[in-house]
């Protein structure tokens, strides 16, 4: 059974099918419905034995790298170009097939946005790499 990461983004990815303002400009009931839907998806996945993990990330980001011997780590927290991808969260699923992963991703994408209309959000579907089988 392959595992997939279904990534949701604050920004980045293909041209939005339905452009919407950032979530902090949504009506409170729309935000609530959106989050309730994410919980609903997680419950469905668990009932079907396909759930692995689900998380949301805050938008703040810090880049860190090794600073070299005897040097402190080098960090930067911006500014980042507005076009750079920014991951907002994910579902990790353990499913029978790639097709099944797409089906779930499309369902996630139908999540409610402003005005209770589907968001049509692009979901980034990434397969989790597995170690090559040893001793075959």
């Amino acid at each position, binding site marked *: 059974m392959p595992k997939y990461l279904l990534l949701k983004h604050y920004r980045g990815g293909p041209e939005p099918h339905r452009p919407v303002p950032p979530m902090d400009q949504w009506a409170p009931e729309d935000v*609530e*419905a959106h989050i309730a839907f994410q919980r609903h998806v997680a419950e469905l996945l668990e009932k079907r034995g396909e759930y692995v993990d689900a998380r949301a990330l805050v938008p703040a980001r810090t880049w860190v790298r090794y600073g070299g011997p005897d040097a402190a780590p080098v960090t930067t927290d911006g500014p980042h170009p507005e076009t750079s991808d920014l991951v907002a969260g994910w579902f990790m699923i353990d499913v029978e*097939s790639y097709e099944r992963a797409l089906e779930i991703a499309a369902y996630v994408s139908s999540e409610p946005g402003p005005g209770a209309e589907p968001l049509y959000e692009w979901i980034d579907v990434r397969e989790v790499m597995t170690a090559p089988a040893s001793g075959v």
Partner: protein
Amino acid sequence: MSGEPTDRVEESELRALVPRVLAGLVRRGEDFDAAEDALQEALVEALRVWPERPPQDPRAWLSTVATRRLIDARRSDAARRGREDTLHERPEPPPTTETGDDTLFLLFCCCHPSLAPASQVALTLRAVGGLTTREIADAFYVPEATMAQRSAGPSAACAGAAWTSPATSRSCCASCTSSTRPGTQGGPTWPRRRSGSPANSPSPPRNRRRGGCSR
């Protein structure tokens, strides 16, 4: 209950007996879940009793005690529902009892064709392999709750169906085979949202049940 007898009764020895005793009970026609429960109670009793009175034949002992528990459960059930006359009948022992290894039969039950492959694996590891749900979940890197759903197979898919051979298992569930495997087979297995549906009340999932066999 006394807390110390585990060191005198070999736990690994007990565990090794579990699949074979369970297989015997299920083969005889007992409900899978009830048989598992009864066997659990028999194991608890074994831990309590064996240190002082070790059985001559541990497997037979477990089978007998589990059977008594099953009968007890059935009796109280029957009394509660007032249907003693019908529920008291013991299943007929099949002619082939005690020939060959029943574990193989249990394996066929766990690999019931109406179950998704993931469920077949989970169930086999639990019922035949004797692993705990936690152990199986760890091996597959999924949460325990997810694995528990997968191994809830026989009760959901084929509750009450009498398993006598792989062939009859297949036919008993032919009607639900196409709808019980998640993912690619059968009709819609994932709810679809329609534009304009109320956002704060996600539509209830269709086809959420794994199995369609009714008693």
